[in-house]
Structures are given as C-alpha cells and as structure tokens.
C-alpha cells in the first residue's frame, strides 16, 4: 500500500481515537458538574475495570463462550489476594505473571 494512503488511514484512526479522549475533558473540566453527576462518575472507574476484566477471566474465544474454570480465572485468585493484601500494583503484576507461568508448567 502506498505510504500516503497508509498515513491517511492512521491519521483517520488517530483522529477518531483522539476525539472521544479529548472532548469530555474539554467540555467538563471548564464548568461545574451537578453533585449527582459527580457521584455517578465516581462509580464509572470501578464499573469499567470490572467490565474489562471479568470477560477476560470467565470467557474465551471469538465469539466468546463461557469458561469459568480456566487457567486465567484460577490464577486470578492468588493475584487478587496479593493485590488486596499489599496494594502494590507492580507486585500484583509480577505475582500474576509468575503464577500463570507456574500453572502452565504443572
């Protein structure tokens, strides 16, 4: 594919990715938000993280099928306990990786 065409594609991808990242910051950082909205937004991070991680652990394949007892979900248990205990993100990543690796060796 010619270079100009390729760069047209990535510029388009970059633009449509940038806009949703930028617009809410621009609109909502300048004016006060009502209290209920702030409270609702306060629950968005936990909801998003949960929505990202649970399907990774409990389903697999494309299209996804339910698979509750798989290596990824089993390793989530020690990873979760370590995160609860230590509250160290770096440590959690290392423990998760090593547990996953160890389980694969069994």
């Amino acid at each position, binding site marked *: 594919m010619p270079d100009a065409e390729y760069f047209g594609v990535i510029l388009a991808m970059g633009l449509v990715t940038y806009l949703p990242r930028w617009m809410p910051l621009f609109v909502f950082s300048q004016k006060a938000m009502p209290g209920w909205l702030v409270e609702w937004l306060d629950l968005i991070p936990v909801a998003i993280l949960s929505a990202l*991680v*649970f399907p990774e652990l409990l389903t697999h394949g494309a299209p996804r099928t339910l698979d509750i007892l798989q290596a990824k979900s089993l390793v989530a248990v020690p990873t979760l306990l370590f995160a609860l205990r230590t509250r160290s993100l770096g440590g959690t990543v290392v423990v998760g990786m090593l547990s996953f690796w160890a389980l694969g060796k069994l």
Partner: protein
Amino acid sequence: MSPWRERLTMGIRAAWPICMAYFPIGMAFGVLAQKAGLSVFQTGAMSVVVFAGSSQFIGVSMLSSGASLMAIAVTTFVVNLRHLLMSWSLATHLRKTPTPFLFLFAYGVTDESFAVNTVQFREGNWDRWKALIVNHVANIAWVCSSIAGAVSGQFIPSGFLGIDYAMIAMFIGLLVFQLRGRLYVMTALLSGGLSVAFSLVVPGNSYVIFASLIAATGGYVISRLRSPGGPKHA
C-alpha cells in the same frame, strides 16, 4: 527534591507496571504489523498517532484484508469510544485546567493510565502534571515496544514467564484498588456479571460501555435508596 524532580519520580513510579504490561502486547503488535507487511517506521507511526492497543491490532488486520479507510475509521471509533467515559470521569479531577494542557493530556488517556491516575488522584498527593507524566511514559513504552516487536520479530518466546498474563494481572490490581466500600464492590460485581453476559451475545467490545453505564447507574440508584438525599456514599 525539586517539585519537578518529585513529579517525574512519582509519575514514573506509578507508570512502571503499565510499561511492564505494555511490553509484551506492544511487541506482539509489532510482530503482527511486520507480518502484515508494514515497515518499522509505519508500525511506530501507528503507535504514535493512534496509541490504542486493541484498535491497532484490528486496524492492521483490516489493512491486510484490504478494508476501506472509512471502514477502518468507523471500527476504530467504536472500539475506542469507551475512552469517552474515562475522560469524562477524569474531568472531575481536572477542573479549571488550561486548554493546551488538556490537548496534551487527552492523547494519553487509555484504560491503563485512566485507572492508575484515578487511584492516585483519590489517594491524594497527585496533580495533573504527575498524571500527564504517567500518560506519556506509558506512551513511550508502547511506542518502543511496538518498534522492538517490528524490528526483532519474535525474540521473546510466547508464554515467557507468564508475560501474557501481565495485562490481566494489572487490571485485577487496579480493580482491587477501586473497591473502597460496599457500594463499589456491588457496582463491580454488577458490572462484571453484565459484561460477561453481554460479551457472550454481543460481538465486538461494546459490552464494556453498556455494562459500565448500567452498573454505575445501578450503583448510583442503590446509594440513593440507602441514604436518600445523603451527600456521599460509604
């Protein structure tokens, strides 16, 4: 320590787990891009211009199957629309921030930097400059690892030290740090259940947005029912 030195140190310290999780994924992206016939420069350029993991994988595979610019742009837009919610939520921490700063900051809003910065803002001792450093350090790691993947092909064997689990482990940790009371646990379980259910029936990744919106609203309703008119939930 000067304030800038402190900002840099703290920003990098907060960002390093992200970098570690990005490395295998960025490498994998670089390898895929190289196999799809992209040059090292083209691969790095996509990571610089787009900076959004999953949509870059999709973009490369659509490019190699000859999809149109329009189709790629629309797909990318839909895949990355979830950042809208993240930026909206981050806006509560960035009140009265100068517009040029927001231009720089918005570029680096990802699932990972969003989660790390949210936790740090809540724990205090965090400011927009440290948050900006997290965003851009993560970006550097992403760009470098995708270039490394494109240059080297596959020099890290797959499965090496459980590296495929790095991203999931990071999300588990970040999720745990968000659980600051029963309301957050309930919202997390609701969102997790909904997203699993939706992901089984809806193709693509729109389940993230739908599950988050419904769960946050559900959590908000629960908090209202528990303390009508109450200012803050526990």
